[in-house]
């Protein structure tokens, strides 16, 4: 059946059938009934056919194969085709015409047949409908926006007209339809028959439905109709739910292509809610509240199809075919039909007139063309007055006010010094404009100063802006090269005296965030200039959070420019296009604005370039053109992961996937790894037992693990050529296996991708390992045990923990504390080690080892431990506060603190030499590279007196100490060892 439909559609298109009542397009075949159909027979305006033929993008006829089952890619391609077709339109036109004629001949019977075949009901409906709509026409208010361009023609009431029409329609509808949810079914799609809503050929489509809740049920089965350009212009659509055969993106494209607008939420201005099912959501409720009519996908197709200017005869034939089929299906007079019809009529009209306009303006354009200079448009259309500036009007205003009142604030306020305080009435002496490139910051600054009659002096990155000669006073505002400085200072100096002669000046410092690279001291100098400046300074930057500008920000009034909205930009672009004689669609311009992400300059450049080859710019042109030259945009890793895992992740092209995966080759794999479990893959089909999903998970996990291996090769052996392989294994394969709908695994979790947990856990792990290593080295240093860290954790820890905590739980307080402290002393464990041991023995879901210990006992332990600390032997290198040194050591000291009694006798020549070494390295810790070492030694000795026995490890015999120290000592020699010297004596950064 679907093939039937397609054929049918294709013919229609070829014919370019449009307006005639006969042109009932959509008539779907068997199951589908074409409801909307008839409509506006008589009314069609004469002009359309020929004129519109030119515009008719007939090149786009896509075969269903082409379109079927695929992704936006295809539609892109298709679009490309279309565009190509269009650009060659003119040349091809003749051919088409011929073809059209042929076809005309073929099917010239049509019209009457069709009407006859219709059921009565339909007829009734039509009549009802047609009548009002006709009446309405005269009433329609004069043109809305677009028409401006083509004002000579009577433009069809676009938005307003339609709305009116619709409202009335709706009333009609209400009256007519017995309330009931009929509205829902409305989509021309045999709603009556199949309650399921999706109803077109009940049986046959099941195969496409599995698993993919979100896929359009008849994806690609319907031929997308062609219509007259701009046939939807002035209409605003909101898409809700799943459509019957189009992806949402496709539908959006389609609507935009014909000049419609798609918005995200319903408002009064919304013309239609495009929905095929899934009524009852927020959108549909709101739509009902606001009286926004519903439209089904078929209805949309009809709208478009009907708009197509056509030769009447052709349609007739076509429709007769269609209508036969139609007969089979029951047509319920659903409101949708009515809507559609109304719409269609309105649209038809508008199109007709438009095509007139088009031809007319074409001529105009030719005339104008001659005018085009070679000047860059960006210069040519640079705003001349503040009001020309697109968007950010409030910023412009602020800047204006600030400039205007500058004098009052800083010059004529009597006290000269006042301005130096940034707090001065909240007024600042300089202003900092920030915002992305191309949105008119520089222009704003210039225009505003110009308007105020100030002479703007611009200093940008092309000028040297290094610190001027250390004497800033010499050049006021002179953080700049000498010439500029002079200029400014002159202007400034003269300013007070002969105001009449010299215009006031304003300094525009462009691109300040690029300043510190080559311009040493630039920002600091700028600040000091600001402080003493007698002229206003406007600074401009892209990123106001830049580290370089941090200090500057305090002295400036911050004005943050935002991207203009696409509407604002679209409007401006339209104006320019008009001036340049380009025939441009409004939504094409908006699309352009969107594609360049608010960068007007870029938009103009594109536009100018396009103007060289085309005089008509349509939505598709923009799409095609900017597909390749789209402005690169940073996407966040989250966006990338969303895309990869997204429901349609399977349809991304490989290069897109790689782009996403590589957008942040470190973070994306981590986020993928964190979240892949949450996805229910839509590729696996039916999976009751969950086995398939588990298999997919296992494969994904395996691939992620592989990615880790590749990553090791990359990082450890610097095999960067493997980046793509890593990206493939760690991001693309898991995403390809798992993409689908995200599920929540943990109660209370938000259904968004989590940030990769690995980084956090990794750093905690490392921290704990470090702490454990501390405890380990303390134990080693106690010389009671010799074990490695792993053994400590795996085997010892359980018992250690018991020895440390059990007494506290069971025994009387003092005794327990006594015992634990003794035990800690045996192994040189410090209080921190105690905490470490407790900390890393905690497992989630297990009782904490500290449970059952009274706080009082705990504090008693701390107290007891502290008490003993004066006589405690800490044998490990540690952070020690050595009395006599001003600040605590940042690094670990290798010294081992020993009880005095033991060490003193051992001290001999060799040992003290060694001590010297240690001392000197200690000294280095404090960043004094004192070669001599006597002083620190003294400190150490004095320490002994103070009762904290600080003593290097001198325990070993004199004989031995030389050998023992050798490694470190020797390493001070030449070569790499030499470098090790400073710190080799073993301290350690914490």
């Amino acid at each position: 059946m679907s093939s039937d439909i397609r054929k049918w559609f294709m013919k229609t298109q070829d014919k370019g059938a449009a307006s005639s009542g006969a042109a009932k397009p959509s008539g779907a075949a068997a199951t589908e009934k074409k409801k909307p159909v008839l409509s506006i027979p008589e009314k069609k305006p004469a002009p359309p056919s020929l004129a519109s033929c030119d515009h008719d993008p007939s090149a786009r006829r896509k075969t269903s194969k082409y379109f079927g089952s695929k992704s936006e890619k295809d539609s892109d391609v298709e679009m490309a085709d279309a565009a190509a077709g269009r650009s060659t339109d003119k040349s091809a036109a003749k051919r088409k015409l011929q073809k059209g004629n042929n076809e005309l001949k073929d099917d010239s019977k049509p019209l009457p047949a069709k009407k006859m075949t219709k059921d009565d009901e339909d007829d009734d409906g039509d009549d009802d409908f047609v009548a009002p709509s006709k009446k309405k026409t005269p009433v329609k208010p004069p043109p809305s926006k677009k028409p401006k361009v083509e004002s000579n023609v009577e433009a069809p009431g676009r938005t307003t007209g339609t709305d009116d029409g619709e409202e009335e329609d709706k009333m009609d509808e209400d009256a007519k339809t017995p309330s009931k949810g009929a509205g829902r079914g409305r989509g021309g799609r045999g709603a009556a028959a199949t309650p399921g809503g999706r109803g077109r050929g009940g049986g046959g489509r099941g195969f496409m439905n599995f698993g993919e809740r979100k896929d359009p049920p008849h994806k690609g089965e319907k031929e997308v109709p062609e219509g007259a350009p701009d046939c939807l212009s002035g209409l605003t659509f909101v898409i809700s739910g799943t459509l019957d055969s189009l992806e949402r993106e496709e539908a959006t494209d389609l609507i935009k292509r014909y000049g419609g607008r798609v918005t995200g939420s319903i408002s009064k201005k919304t013309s239609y809610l495009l929905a095929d099912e899934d009524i009852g959501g927020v959108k549909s409720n709101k739509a009902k509240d606001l009286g926004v009519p519903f439209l089904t996908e078929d209805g949309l197709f009809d709208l478009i199809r009907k708009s197509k200017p056509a030769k009447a005869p052709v349609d007739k034939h076509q429709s007769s075919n269609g209508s036969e089929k139609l007969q089979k299906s029951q047509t319920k007079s659903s409101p949708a039909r009515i809507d559609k019809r109304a719409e269609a009529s309105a649209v038809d009209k508008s199109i007709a007139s438009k095509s007139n306009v088009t031809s007319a303006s074409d001529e105009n354009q030719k005339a104008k063309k001659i005018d085009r200079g070679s000047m860059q448009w960006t210069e040519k259309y640079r705003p001349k007055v503040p009001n020309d500036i697109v968007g950010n009007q409030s910023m412009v205003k602020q800047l204006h006010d600030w400039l205007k009142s500058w004098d009052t604030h800083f010059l004529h306020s009597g006290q000269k010094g006042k301005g130096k305080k940034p707090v001065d009435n909240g007024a600042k002496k300089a202003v900092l404009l920030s915002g992305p490139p191309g949105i008119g910051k520089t222009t704003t600054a210039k225009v505003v100063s110009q308007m105020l009659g100030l002479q703007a002096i611009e200093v940008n990155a092309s000028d040297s802006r290094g610190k001027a000669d250390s004497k800033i006073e010499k050049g006021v505002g002179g953080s700049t090269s000498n010439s500029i400085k002079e200029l400014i200072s002159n202007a400034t100096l003269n300013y007070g005296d002969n105001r009449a002669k010299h215009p006031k000046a304003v300094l525009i410092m462009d691109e300040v965030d690029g300043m510190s690279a080559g311009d040493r001291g630039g920002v600091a100098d700028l600040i000091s200039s600001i402080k003493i400046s007698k002229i206003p300074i406007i600074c401009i930057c892209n990123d106001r959070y830049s580290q370089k500008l941090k200090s500057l920000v305090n002295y400036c009034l911050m004005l943050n420019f935002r991207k203009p909205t696409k509407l604002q930009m679209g409007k401006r672009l339209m104006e320019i296009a008009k001036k340049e004689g380009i025939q441009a669609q409004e939504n094409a311009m908006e699309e352009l604005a969107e594609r360049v992400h608010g960068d007007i300059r870029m938009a103009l450049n594109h536009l100018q370039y396009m103007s060289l080859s085309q005089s008509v710019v349509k939505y598709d042109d923009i799409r095609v053109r900017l597909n390749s030259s789209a402005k690169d945009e940073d996407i966040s890793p989250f966006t990338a992961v969303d895309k990869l895992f997204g429901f349609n992740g399977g349809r991304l092209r490989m290069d897109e996937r790689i782009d996403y995966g590589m957008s942040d080759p470190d973070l994306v794999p981590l986020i993928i790894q964190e979240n892949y479990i949450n996805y229910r893959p839509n590729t696996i089909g039916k999976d009751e037992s969950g086995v398939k999903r588990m298999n997919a998970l296992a494969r994904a996990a395996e691939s992620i693990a592989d990615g880790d291996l590749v990553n090791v090769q990359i990082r450890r052996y610097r095999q960067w050529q493997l980046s793509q392989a890593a990206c493939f294994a760690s991001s693309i394969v898991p995403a390809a296996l798992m993409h689908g709908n995200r599920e929540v695994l943990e109660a209370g979790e938000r259904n968004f991708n989590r940030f990769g947990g690995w980084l956090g856990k990794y750093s905690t792990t490392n921290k704990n390992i470090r702490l454990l290593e501390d405890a380990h080295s303390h134990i080693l240093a106690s010389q009671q045990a010799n074990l490695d860290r792993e053994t400590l954790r795996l085997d010892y820890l359980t018992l250690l923990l018991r020895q440390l905590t059990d007494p506290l739980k069971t025994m009387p307080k003092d005794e327990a504390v006594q015992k634990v402290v003794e035990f800690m002393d045996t192994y040189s464990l410090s209080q921190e080690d105690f905490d470490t041991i407790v900390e890393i023995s905690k497992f989630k879901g297990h009782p904490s080892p500290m449970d059952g210990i009274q706080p009082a006992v705990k504090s008693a332990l701390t107290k007891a431990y502290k008490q003993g600390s004066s006589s405690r032997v800490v044998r490990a290198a540690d952070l020690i506060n050595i009395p006599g040194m001003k600040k605590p050591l940042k690094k670990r000291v290798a010294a081992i603190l020993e009880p005095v009694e033991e060490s003193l006798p051992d001290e001999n020549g060799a040992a003290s030499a060694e001590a010297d070494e240690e001392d000197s390295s200690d000294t280095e810790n404090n960043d004094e590279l004192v070669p001599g070492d006597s002083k620190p030694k003294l400190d150490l000795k004095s320490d002994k007196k103070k009762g904290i026995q600080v003593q290097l490890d001198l325990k070993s015999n004199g004989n031995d100490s030389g050998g023992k120290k050798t490694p470190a000592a020797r390493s001070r020699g030449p070569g790499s060892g030499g470098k090790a010297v400073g710190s080799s004596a073993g301290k350690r950064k914490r």
Partner: protein
Amino acid sequence: MLWVDKYRPKTLDKVTVHDQVAQNLRKLVSEQDCPHLLFYGPSGSGKKTLILALIKQMFGAGAEKVKMENKTWKIDTGTRTLEIELAMLSSAHHVEMNPSDAGFQDRYVVQEVIKEMAKNRPIDAKGKRAFKVLVLNEVDKLSREAQHSLRRTMEKYSASCRLILCCNSSSKVTEAVRSRCLNVRVNAPSEDQIVQVLEFIGKKENLQLPAGFAARIAAQSNRNLRRAILFFETCKVQQYPFTSNQAAPPLDWEQYVSEISTDILTEQSPKRLYAVRQKFYELLVNCIPPESILKKLLAELLKKLDADLKHEICHWAAHYEHKMRLGSKAIFHLEAFVAKFMSIYKEFLVASFG
């Protein structure tokens, strides 16, 4: 002091469990020349004890005076300067270090640090030994590159330095290194030997051991003497006098791992996999080496697994352990193993029980 340290034999003469090995070592040393040595064997079998006793035998009591240092080595690799921090335990005669702590920079440790140390002769030649000893722990964790660097060092500086390598598995030490050493295999003590040791300790501590108590602990320790002694003391701390059926409480992490295995076996679903991942993280954060986790997990799973699957599961465990060693993010591999297991097991369950 813990018993495990208290009753560690300090000299070769006092070694009881591996007395044969100890005798041989003593003879070896007394002949004045000592080759490079490689001790290998499962953990808790007494390698370290033997090494320390051996060093003491060589150098006398001086070797017992050790100090602990954390040294930062600056190493010039040509393009950049690395800072490597290593903890080393040194006495006048020997230095003990764990080069694999430097992670994937262990190569530089071997190339620079060890070479540097090996190159220098001891200053005092009047001692009876003209060499010093470098004890390298966990050589099986050294990267391949580091091991390759090691072998030249071993030959070139053998005049001034002896290496004593210590590892669990000799198969992870390259052939070249192994052939340059005298390999000393240190077996896990048999349960009988463990029982003897426990009884010895019990006697020294004046404890009453119920019949079969020592044997039970020995069995629980999985022939790991150190663990057995620790268990023994844990029991003592937990409850004394011992009751006849008293068993040592399991190690905290082992208990956690066996919980994970129960989780996995009771439910195989993405949700459970996610929960398991959290638990793995918990273990890793608590410094449990991932290899131990995987090994223990496998052991736990095998206990309850259908015989048909055992072989396959072992294969995958080995597979992922290998990958874990090659990779750097252990959790990925642990998770992959669990996912694989779940997938296989679930399929098996569905196939056999519908």
